[in-house]
């Protein structure tokens, strides 16, 4: 029953996507009366996608094992929460989830812009529907989650298994699995929208102006989700995988990071096009690259080409994705070549010490970062395909390459906002940079005295102080000016300044968040300490200022698993203050016990206990004690960055209206009284 309805929904969504795409491109090619029909097709796809995802949710919750996806990932003993989120725990379900999110974004785009951007919208709609058609084709054919179980598993016709294996144990071991994948998907899939606008700009030949304005919101929103998705993924692996780290340069982690880098570059470079009508070609290429990287990342994780923690799926999806990636690449580049005359723009550069230069280096660093990570991720695949050797690129490569790039980005996070567009007066620059530089130099001495002897870490701290001081200046100066002008209190003046130009100050808040993340990563990776202890019952170990005592070791049973747990009393030098219970979980379907480490989080350092092994008589247990300084600041920085970006788009709608009403874009910027204080970014 659910299978048949599911087939109808998936098939209908595919059909409507194709028909709608045809209508959309016909509307662009001189039949504008078809545009509303293309829009309706998008709504229809969204309705059918919603139906499909609801059907699957019902099948999962009702344990309908006649549906093959449920028979793959469902189990009667799995708790309800993990049953619901197993919607995206395996290949077919995650592609269905993908298709649904794309349908949701598409419907939102065509609805919000139904009366705007008449030149662009038909092509935007058509591009979105073609991408949508690709995913519904996958769902109708090689990744159909609704196939009846007996067909998929080769059982007798109509036969239904009594129970299933449940989701991959690693994926039902932590509630974060309910948060991390949806955030990541919302980010990943959302980046289809700016791509669609880019293609529409190329098709319509209107490569400056509207598309850049429209695309900012549609890039910022997925960027927020992607940032939150990446940070929550790092947090998930920290809380679950038991080695005390949050980032291993695993290809799947890299897959999520690559489009983040290019999307971040794009968000910066479109400001240059908006302001100076330049970088037209570059922006188009960045938006295409970003979309290709999301497809590539999906290919990496969904085709079974990798053997890693995340790559839990295998299938026939690979060739489909490679084909589609090739198609997108060829069509996009052909369009760029066709419009190359319109995309030419004069470089606008008035002075070395200008915002434009900062953006240029920001883009250079982000693209270099992308290239580094891509090279390290793809190299093993290419080596295996061409030379037949199995090789992996070690974390040292990624670390050596990324630390200098990240240092440059931290520096720019402060310098960029402080530099004015075009050229600034040397006086103003000296005023802006004097105190932050003094503060950074002083802090450098202090950090050195307090023992920061690792040069790169020390440099990160110094650059961070400089960046934060420069950013504070950007808030402080206009707030003080306003206080003097209006006689308000400083807090009130600050609030007024920020809320009047949320785009600008939201962006600076993001920069704060990124700097905090950088500091957290630098300190936690440099000063992390780790040692393994085998302790008898009642025995205590002292390590890095902490005392850890094994109190008891016991096994227990939960509906979906057994566990072996060790209870430790932990504390600083003065006695024990907490109990931590790291454990090993035994799932019936997993050969390997799945560890659940325990983390005690403090602002200065995390204490991280991982149960490595135990004696079967219960006499002793082996625990890995990890002391990770400042890790929590990575999560806090991520939250600040996401909230800052939210602030930056919180009045995006009204901003767009304002710019439409304005006779010329320059009207808004009529008051560059103090260079760098006015302006919108």
């Amino acid at each position, binding site marked *: 029953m659910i299978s048949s309805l599911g087939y109808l929904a998936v098939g209908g969504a595919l059909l409507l996507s194709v028909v709608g795409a045809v209508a959309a491109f016909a509307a662009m090619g001189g039949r504008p009366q078809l545009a509303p029909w293309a829009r309706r097709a998008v709504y229809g796809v969204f309705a059918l996608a919603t139906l499909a995802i609801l059907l699957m949710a019902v099948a999962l919750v009702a344990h309908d094992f006649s549906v093959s996806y449920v028979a793959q990932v469902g189990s009667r003993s799995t708790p309800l929460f993990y049953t619901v989120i197993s919607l995206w725990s395996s290949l077919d379900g995650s592609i269905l989830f993908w298709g649904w999110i794309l349908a949701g974004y598409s419907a939102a785009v065509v609805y919000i812009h139904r009366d705007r951007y008449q030149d662009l919208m038909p092509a935007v709609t058509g591009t979105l529907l073609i991408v949508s058609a690709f995913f519904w084709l996958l769902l109708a054919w090689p990744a159909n989650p609704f196939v009846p179980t007996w067909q998929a598993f080769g059982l007798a016709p109509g036969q239904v298994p009594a129970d299933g294996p449940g989701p991959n144990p690693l994926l039902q071991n932590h509630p974060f699995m309910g948060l991390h994948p949806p955030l990541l998907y919302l980010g990943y899939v959302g980046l289809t929208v700016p791509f669609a606008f880019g293609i529409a700009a190329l098709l319509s030949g209107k490569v400056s102006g509207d598309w850049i304005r429209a695309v900012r919101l549609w890039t910022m929103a997925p960027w927020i989700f992607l940032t939150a998705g990446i940070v929550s993924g790092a947090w998930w692996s920290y809380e679950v995988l038991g080695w005390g780290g949050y980032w291993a340069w695993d290809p799947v982690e890299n897959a999520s990071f690559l489009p983040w880098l290019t999307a971040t570059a794009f968000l910066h470079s479109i400001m240059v096009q908006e302001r100076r009508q330049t970088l037209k070609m570059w922006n188009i290429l960045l938006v295409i690259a970003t979309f290709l990287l999301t497809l590539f990342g999906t290919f990496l994780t969904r085709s079974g080409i990798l053997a890693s923690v995340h790559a839990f799926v295998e299938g026939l999806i690979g060739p489909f994705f490679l084909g589609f990636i090739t198609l997108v690449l060829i069509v996009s580049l052909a369009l760029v070549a066709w419009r190359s005359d319109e995309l030419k723009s004069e470089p606008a*550069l008035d002075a070395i010490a200008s915002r434009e230069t900062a953006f*240029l280096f920001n883009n250079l660093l982000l693209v270099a970062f992308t290239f580094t990570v891509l*090279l*390290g991720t793809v190299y093993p695949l290419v080596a295996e395909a061409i030379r037949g050797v199995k090789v992996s690129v070690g974390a040292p490569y*990624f670390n050596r390459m990324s630390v200098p790039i990240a240092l440059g980005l931290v520096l720019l996070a402060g310098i960029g906002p402080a530099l004015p567009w075009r050229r600034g007066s040397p006086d103003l620059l000296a005023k802006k940079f004097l105190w932050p530089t003094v503060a950074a130099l002083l802090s450098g001495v202090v950090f050195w005295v307090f023992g920061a002897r690792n040069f790169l870490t020390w440099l990160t701290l110094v650059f961070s102080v400089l960046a934060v001081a420069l950013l504070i200046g950007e808030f402080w100066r206009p707030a003080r000016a306003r206080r003097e002008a209006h006689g308000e209190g400083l807090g009130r003046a600050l609030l007024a300044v920020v809320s009047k130009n949320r785009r600008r100050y939201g962006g600076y808040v993001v920069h704060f968040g990124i700097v905090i993340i950088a500091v957290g990563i630098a300190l936690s990776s440099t000063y992390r300490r780790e040692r393994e202890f085998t302790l008898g019952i009642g025995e205590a170990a002292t390590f890095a200022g902490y005392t850890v005592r094994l109190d008891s070791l*016991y096994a*227990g049973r939960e509906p979906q698993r057994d566990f072996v747990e060790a209870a430790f009393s932990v504390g600083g030098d003065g006695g024990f203050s907490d109990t931590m219970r790291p454990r090993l979980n035994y799932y019936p379907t997993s050969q390997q016990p799945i560890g659940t480490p325990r983390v005690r989080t403090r602002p200065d350092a995390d204490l991280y206990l991982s149960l490595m*092994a135990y004696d*079967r008589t*219960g006499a002793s247990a082996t625990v890995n004690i990890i002391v990770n300084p400042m890790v929590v600041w990575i999560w806090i920085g991520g939250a600040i960055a996401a909230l800052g970006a939210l602030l930056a788009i919180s009045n995006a709608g009204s901003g767009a209206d304002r710019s439409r009403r304005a006779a010329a874009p320059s009207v808004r910027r009529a008051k560059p009284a103090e260079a760098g204080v006015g302006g919108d970014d």
Partner: protein
Amino acid sequence: MNKKLTLAIGVVVVLVVFGYFAFGGLGRSLVYFWTPTELLAEGEAAYGTSIRLGGMVIPGSVAWNGETQELRFRLADEGGIIEVESAGVPPQMFLEAAARQEPIGAVVEGTLGRNGIFRATNLMVRHSEEYRAPQHGEDRQEYYRDLFKEQGAESGT
């Protein structure tokens, strides 16, 4: 023009330095994955190279000294056997398989010494096609059954 030239030179310098480090750094960070057969076939080149070695642990070859935290076992594939030495407590699953005298897939990271013994700095347990399907926890419970007693109420057996 002068500014643009300065900037262009800056960009080129950055790119050259970057490219140099990217490709150079990649070469030095590659870790090859070999099987015992491949390692033995390398001959002289095998010594001292940092690699990942993957194979099946020969049942009964595991010697674990809890006092000195030293682990020794033999890792094999169809064409070769390598003696492996590693320090630190092995993963729980490794100990369980050794206690049951079952073959288990393992990947070790380290180098082959002149004495013919592979010094591993890292030991990972790998799922392998050769390994039989799990038997719904029956043997497994055997391993931690004694530990249920201490919990009284939560004991499900």
